[in-house]
Structures are given as structure tokens and as C-alpha cells.
């Protein structure tokens, strides 16, 4: 009996040290799944880039249920994964429960900035600043003076996107009309291209000729229909310009891929604390490549870059929806 326990103990010790020696990073995708062409896929791209460059391997899981959030965190932490990278604000609460139990494991939380724990690297993005810039571009590209916004679900994060966008639109054209819709109220709202397409048609019938989609996989339908109907669209999170060359005005970049890549590169030594990546840190921005070069005039680019410089220097402040749960430019 004692021999058995000793053996088991030794085996467990071995397993533990093996885990510590490996210390693979782990990546937990949110419910949207890793190929959502947007938020989660950006993380996947960053992780893949790290794996290709270093030859390293990492563990990953695509969550299927709420109860798995805490489960996946604990399982990866117990298996010795370090750092454990999580995607999305919904991981905040499970993290606050799990992180103190594994003080030697570093956690990296994307889209979380309000936790108080010494072993979490919390990364937020100033989405309103990036959205402001693409809002300006939308207003300049619009001929009908009506632009659209299609969000995933009516939650604070998406209002935050919409709010920055609306401010950008109004900054260029105070009389512009902004048509805003949310896709749905269930998680399928993040992955419903058909509904995205219907909303796009509805907004076109209301006069919109540039539509910004901040709706995860739903945005694929928005971009598709906008291209089919001959109007412009704006992608989100990843650079989506290439999906319909010449039809996507720009994409609001949220460099989740860079954040994930940096965290994996730093490995166990990753610095913890709260980091908000805005225009200055190039955490957000607008995409310009050969696919949309013909759509963005020199004048447009100059104006946007000027605004960008002003925001970085602090001369221009874009109101964040979070500050007091309201938006000066758009009602939800």
C-alpha cells in the first residue's frame, strides 16, 4: 500500500516536472470558434505565426459551453501550460476565480482590463479610436450621407465599437444619418451571415451606402451582400479587405494577433498588468493594402492620418462608451 502510494507520488512528481519543463502555451478560443474570420481567427493567426517562427507547439480549445470556461482554465493550468491565453470578456469572471489558485501560471486575458490579480496580463483595445477612424472614412466615402452599422449582439462592447464609429462619421459630416442594427440576442448572432445579409439589404433600402460590421462571423454575410449590391463595407478585427477586393473600404484592425504572438514569444516571462492598446501602440488602426488602395483617396488618407495623430497626441479625444455607459453621437 505505502509502496503503491510512493510509486504514484513519484509518477505524479514526474508528470509535474515534465509539465514544467515543457511549458507549452495554451490558447482558449471563445464560443465563436477559431475560424470566425475575425476576433478568434486573429488569435489563431498570431499563435500560428509564433509556432511557425519558433517551431514551438501550443495547446488550444474551442469552447462549447459556459461551464467549460473554468474547466479549460484549470485543466490547462494543471497540465503545466504557461502562459494560458484567453479570448473575450466573458473569461473575466472565471479567471478571477481560477487565477489565484495557480499563482505560478501566467494568464493572458484579451479584452479584459478590470481584474485585480498579480498573475494576469490583461489586454484591452481602444476599439473606439480605431472605429472613429473608419467612421471618418465611411462618411467621406458615402454619397448618400447615410452610413450603416451592424453589430453582433446588443452588449456594451459592441456599443463601444458603434459609438466610436458614429463619432467619426459625425466629425466629418455632422448631418450624416447613421443606421444601426444588432443581429440578435442569442450567441448565434456572432455567426449568422444570413441575418447579416438581410440586415445589410434593409440598411441599403434605408439609403446606407457604407456599412461597418462588428459582428464576428455574421460580418462575412454583411461584406458579401454589400459587395453584391454594389456598396462599400468595412471589416473588423482582422484585415478583411481581401474578402472582396475593391468592395471593402477598409477594416478596423484590432491587433489581437500581435497581442497573442507577443504573449507566446515572451512565454513564462510575460509581463503582467493591465495594458490598453490604442492607436499609439498600434493595437488598433485601419487597414490599407492593394485591395482597397483604389477606394482610399489621398485626401481621405491625409484627413484620417491627421485625426490619428491628434488622437495619439491627446488633442482629440474620442468618447468611450464605457466611461458613463452612454454615447454622445448615437442612441442604442
Amino acid at each position, binding site marked *: 500500500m505505502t509502496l503503491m502510494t510512493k510509486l504514484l507520488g513519484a509518477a505524479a512528481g514526474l508528470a509535474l516536472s515534465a509539465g514544467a519543463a515543457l511549458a507549452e502555451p495554451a490558447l482558449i478560443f471563445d*464560443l465563436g*470558434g477559431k475560424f470566425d474570420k475575425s476576433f478568434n481567427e486573429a488569435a489563431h493567426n498570431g499563435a500560428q505565426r509564433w509556432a511557425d517562427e519558433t517551431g514551438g507547439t501550443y*495547446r488550444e*480549445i*474551442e469552447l*462549447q*459551453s*459556459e*461551464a*467549460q470556461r*473554468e*474547466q*479549460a482554465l*484549470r*485543466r*490547462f493550468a494543471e497540465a503545466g501550460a504557461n502562459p494560458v491565453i484567453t479570448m473575450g*470578456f*466573458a473569461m*473575466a*469572471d472565471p479567471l478571477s476565480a481560477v487565477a489565484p489558485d495557480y499563482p505560478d501560471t501566467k494568464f493572458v486575458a484579451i*479584452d479584459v482590463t*478590470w481584474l485585480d490579480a498579480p498573475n494576469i496580463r490583461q489586454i484591452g483595445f481602444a476599439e473606439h479610436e480605431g472605429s472613429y477612424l473608419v467612421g471618418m472614412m465611411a462618411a467621406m466615402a458615402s454619397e448618400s450621407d447615410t452610413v450603416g452599422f451592424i453589430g453582433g*449582439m*446588443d*452588449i*456594451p*462592447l459592441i456599443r*463601444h465599437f458603434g459609438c466610436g464609429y458614429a463619432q467619426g462619421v459625425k466629425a466629418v459630416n455632422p448631418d450624416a444619418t447613421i443606421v444601426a442594427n444588432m443581429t*440578435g*440576442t*442569442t*450567441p448565434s448572432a456572432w455567426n449568422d451571415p444570413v441575418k447579416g445579409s438581410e440586415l445589410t439589404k434593409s440598411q441599403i433600402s434605408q439609403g446606407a451606402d457604407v456599412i461597418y460590421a462588428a459582428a464576428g462571423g455574421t460580418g462575412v454575410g454583411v461584406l458579401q451582400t454589400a459587395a453584391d449590391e454594389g456598396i462599400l463595407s468595412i471589416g473588423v478585427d482582422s484585415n478583411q479587405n481581401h474578402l472582396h477586393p475593391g468592395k471593402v473600404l477598409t477594416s478596423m484592425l484590432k491587433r489581437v494577433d500581435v497581442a497573442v504572438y507577443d504573449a507566446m514569444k515572451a512565454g513564462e516571462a510575460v509581463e503582467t498588468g493591465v495594458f490598453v492598446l490604442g492607436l499609439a501602440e498600434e493595437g488598433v488602426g485601419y487597414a490599407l493594402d492593394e485591395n482597397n488602395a483604389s477606394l482610399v483617396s489621398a485626401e481621405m488618407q491625409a484627413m484620417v492620418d491627421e485625426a490619428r495623430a491628434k488622437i495619439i497626441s491627446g488633442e482629440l479625444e474620442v468618447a468611450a462608451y*464605457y466611461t458613463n*455607459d452612454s454615447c454622445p453621437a448615437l442612441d442604442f
Partner: protein
Amino acid sequence: MEKMPRWADVVLIPLISLILAAAISAVVILAIGEDPVAAVRLMVDGALGSTYGWGYTLYYATNFMFTGLAVAVAFHARLFNIGGEGQAMLGGLGVALVALYVPWPHWSFALIFAVAGAALFGAVWAAVPAYLQARRGSHIVITTIMFNFIAAAVLNYVLVNLLRPAGSMDPASARFPEAVHLPTLHEMLAPFGIAFSKAAPANVSLLVALLACLLVWLLIWRTRLGYEIRAYGHSETGALYAGISPFKITMIAMIISGALAGMMAINNVMGEAERLVLNATEGAGFIGIAVALMGRSHPFGVFLAAILFGFLYQGGAELALWTSIPRELIVVIQALVILFTGALDNMVRMPLEALFLRLRKRRA
């Protein structure tokens, strides 16, 4: 005379259906280049091989017991309640209001009132379609499924605009106070010297679910009301002739059904998350339909089927964690089980019935 013995109906048909589902799943796993034997071993080991696995399996099973019972009770009155999802969502709201706004001295009081709150909210949400069915003839399948979407919209509005604590971006209520924390199986079994995994979310609501199974059995087979519900389910005109009011039975069966679905929230909202999140029910209301079908609407069958689906959920999670089998495939495996036990029931039943009839003839 029955076409085949009862044991064949209750045990053999689900078993054969399961084996068929497993066989096709194995083919699918082979087709994507993974080892089906290793996958099954990982699922069994991950879901049943440790108290940790059991803790998750039983946690999911508790959810499915409530929603399965909810569908089963309505089935007995031949009402197809596919609104369990929405009723459970609203039940969550009831639990959250009880847990957040009343200073409870002890979790046991909180649990009793949370059960009441969850049951009340779920029952009210089911009562509206029931009334529309009984008085206006609006088909209950259509109305209950539409009420799921309304429930999601209501919950979205309440969480984003009313219950969300200031400063949080997460559309969820505040964490419930420590006093309403339900004991997990770890805490319940520790005094008896049984070391149950600390991380697993299974909690005292499992006992409530078991109690609910027993009460539903008593209700359906041992009370006058249960008799009336079954009589109405077998023949509406016959029940009417016997003096049973269709309005009354429709309302009562759906209210009980909705209350049971709502009570699921004490497990997932109060027991596991300890706060109300947007996506709290995550399809358990729909799984309840499969559970009730597979369990032949009998509380003990529902109990067994709920454990099976708990196993599929937890085993599926382990597959997702440790193999490269994509999560879509795990959904495929779960869907195959539902397909064979629910929709393709007659495919197994008819040949079996014919077989038993032939055997009997030969003996005669």
C-alpha cells in the same frame, strides 16, 4: 396484448440505437483520420474515470434531468413543449433576483426560495403559450419556440441595461453573495471522508433534481391529476367525455413543465456560475427533448438519459481539450445519438417488434 415485452421497449431499443450511433460515430472519426478506440477511451476516462469527470458529468446531467422532466410531463398531456430553453432562461432571472436582492442568512433558505423563484418565472413563461393553445388554438410548438427568442431578448435587455454592475463590460449580473453559495459535491461529501474533486461544479441541486424525478413519478402515476393528464394525452375526446377539462389540463401540465424547466437555473446559475450570464442555458432546453424521448417520458428513463447526455457533454469536452478532433465533430456525435434515439426510433422498433411477434408465433 403488447407487441413485445416491456424490457425490450425500455432497455433493448435505446441500447441498439446507441450502438448504431456509436458505430457511425466511429466511422466518422476514422474518416477524419483519428483513432475511434482511443477517442472512446478518452471520453469514458474523462467523463467517468475520476471524481472530477463525474462532477462535470453529473453537473450537466442535473441540467438535463430538469429539462427532460419538463418535456416529459408535457408529453404525457400530448403537449410538445419546446420552450424549455426560454423557460430556463427566465428561471435564471428568477434565481438571480432572489439571490441578489435578499440578504439570506443561510444557503438552505436561499435554495428553497430560489427554487420557488425559478419555478415561478419558468411557469409564467410557459403559461402564456399554454393559455394561447387552450383558449385560442395557437399551436404550442410554434408559440413555445417563439417564446425562446423573446426570453433571450428579455434577458439581453435586463442584463445589459438593468443588472450589469457599473464598469463591467461583461453582460452579466454581479456575483451572488457568499451566503447563497450552494455546497458542491466536494463540500457535501467531505464530512463523510469521501474525497470528491474540488473543481467540479456538481452541487446540491443534483439532489433537488433526483427529488423532482421522484415527485414527477408520483404525480404521473400515483395521483388523480396525473391520471387526468395521461388520459387527456391518450385521447382528448375520451378525456372530455370523462369530465376532464382540456383547458385545465393544458394549463396545469404546461405550468408544471415550465416550472421544472425553470428550476434548471438553480443548478447552472446558482450552483455553477453564481451569477446570471447571457448564455446560461446553452441549449439544455433542447437537449431536454432528446432526453425525454430517449427516456420514454418516464422519470427513471429521463434520469438515465440525462446521465448519458452528461457523459457525452463532458466526454466531448475532454476530446476537445486533448485531441485535434474538432468541436464540430463532437456535435456530430451528440447529434447522431439524438437522431437514433429520437427521430429514428421506429427504424429499430419495427424490425424488433416483428422479430418478437415471430418468436411468439413460433412458441404458440
